[in-house]
């Protein structure tokens, strides 16, 4: 903002305001004169005649009288006159006053509008003079140069973005490599931790008597009492919960390990129980405890179906099974012609251990029942050959419907015939005896 320009602007604005003011004053004068005229007109009709000094010429007066007080010629405009009475003339005057007032009002509004402009220019002048340390920031603007700059800016922005994109790509590729590296590192770390764990286990093994502290109270009961409890129960419990326990233990010991490992408490914690375990184990091939091939400090579960090991470790209760297996092994060829054959060959291994107590009397009953079954099967071998040998209980119970039942209840009798693992209840045995008899 040039000072000279501002001064010029200010000049013009002031001029406009002055003009408006002048007009306003003019109108005000006219208005006042009209007002006085009105008064006069009103007062004229009060008297019949007025004594006045009549002017003729600019400096001469003559005493006279106004006689026709009520006849007034009014100049309407454009050389038109009209004769009116005083009152009517007063009305005309009044109307003129109104119009004057209106114009005065307009002019005053105009003045109001002009005033802020003046204020602004005065402010700018103030800034231009730089009083009180206020400086004005001036930026030279050239439209052509501005265009050029804008194009330049656009290009530079694009280049920048491209660069960012490339950098990002590079960083991504780097991170991929890194991830591969970290994976290898992870494996190494895992191995390290494994070794640590093993060493720890060894340390633990030095103190086998110490019971493990577990969060769940059940296990406390289990472990210390493994030796004392009956073998079946201990086995069952351990077999059931063996999976869970080691998880806990591993979690407690090696929380760093990302993977969970299943351990067998029985192996590592108490070497004492190994012997009892050997005694107690029967057909639980699901447990890997029988696998002594693996070293104990390596906690790995492997499943092996080795009937020989089973037979070695069979308890006294399962002597019959041994007999059966021996018996059957001679007779049965390894051919598997039907699903039933599977049961025949491997039925021993997969049969679950019964929860019932095996008392001596039961064993005898079972024995007898089996003997009867064998006799029956032999007698009826003419009907069906291979399948008949599998029959047992069903035939004995209801000889009349034996043929039909035999087909239906094939799987059932297989279990009972091949392996006398399921001890027959007294009632059944009694029934069989009855049927026989």
């Amino acid at each position, binding site marked *: 903002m040039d000072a000279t320009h501002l001064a010029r602007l200010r000049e013009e604005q002031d001029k406009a305001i002055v003009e408006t003011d002048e007009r306003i004053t003019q109108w005000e004068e006219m208005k006042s004169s009209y007002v006085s005229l009105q008064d006069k007109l009103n007062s004229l009709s009060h008297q019949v005649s007025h004594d006045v000094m009549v002017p003729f010429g600019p400096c001469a007066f003559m005493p006279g009288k106004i006689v026709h007080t009520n006849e007034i010629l009014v100049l*309407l*405009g*454009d050389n*038109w006159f009209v004769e009116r009475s005083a009152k009517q003339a007063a009305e*005309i005057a009044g109307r003129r006053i109104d119009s004057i007032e209106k114009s005065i009002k307009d002019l005053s509004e105009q003045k109001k509008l002009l005033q802020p402009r003046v204020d602004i220019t005065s402010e700018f002048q103030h800034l231009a003079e730089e009083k009180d340390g206020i400086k004005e920031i001036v930026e030279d603007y050239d439209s052509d140069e501005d265009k050029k700059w804008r194009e330049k800016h656009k290009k530079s922005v694009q280049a920048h973005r491209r660069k960012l994109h490339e950098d990002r790509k590079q960083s991504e590729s780097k991170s991929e490599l890194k991830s591969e590296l970290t994976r290898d590192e992870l494996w190494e770390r895992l191995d390290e931790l494994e070794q640590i764990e093993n060493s720890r286990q060894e340390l633990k093994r030095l103190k086998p008597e110490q019971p493990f502290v577990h969060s769940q109270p059940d296990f406390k009961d289990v472990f210390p009492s493994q030796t004392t409890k009956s073998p079946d129960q201990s086995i069952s419990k351990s077999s059931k919960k063996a999976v869970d326990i080691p998880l806990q233990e591993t979690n407690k010991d090696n929380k760093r390990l990302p993977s969970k490992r299943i351990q067998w408490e029985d192996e590592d914690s108490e070497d004492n129980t190994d012997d009892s375990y050997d005694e107690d184990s029967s057909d639980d091939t699901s447990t890997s405890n029988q696998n002594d091939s693996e070293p104990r400090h390596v906690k790995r579960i492997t499943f092996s179906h080795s009937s020989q090991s089973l037979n070695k470790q069979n308890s006294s209760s399962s002597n019959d099974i041994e007999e059966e297996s021996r018996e059957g092994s001679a007779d049965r060829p390894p051919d598997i012609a039907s699903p039933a054959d599977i049961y025949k060959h491997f039925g021993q291994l997969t049969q679950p251990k019964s929860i019932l107590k095996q008392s001596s009397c039961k064993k005898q009953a079972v024995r007898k029942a089996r003997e009867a079954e064998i006799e029956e099967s032999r007698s009826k071998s003419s009907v069906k050959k291979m399948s008949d040998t599998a029959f047992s209980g069903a035939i004995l119970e209801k000889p009349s419907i034996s043929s039909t039942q035999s087909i239906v209840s094939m799987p059932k009798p297989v279990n009972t015939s091949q392996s006398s693992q399921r001890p027959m209840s007294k009632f059944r045995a009694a029934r069989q005896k009855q049927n026989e008899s």
Partner: protein
Amino acid sequence: MSEGLQKRLETEIEKFQSCQKDLQKYITSRQKLEAQLSENTLVKTELDLIKDDGTVFKMIGPVLVKQELEEAKQNVQKRIDYINGEIKRHEGLIKDVEKKQEAHKESLSKLQHQYQQAQVKAATKA
């Protein structure tokens, strides 16, 4: 060359100035007409207000001539219409003159530019 340019420049300036004058004239006359119009409208309203009461006079020179109210009214009305027409005419004229002025302005600026160039050349030569 420069003299010719100068002459041409002078003529152009004169034309431009004459245009400007015309424009001014027309503008003033227009303003005048507008004033008359407002006056006459006022007279009309006054005449409408008086009933068949007073006598109406028309001032022709120093003489007041009596007029009838109706006649006066009609006269005034005519006058108003006439003034309106005049105003319109004047407006058209003003527009034309303004256009002319613009053209003159452009040519004038061109000539001035040429003149300046010629002067610069002359200065370099000399």
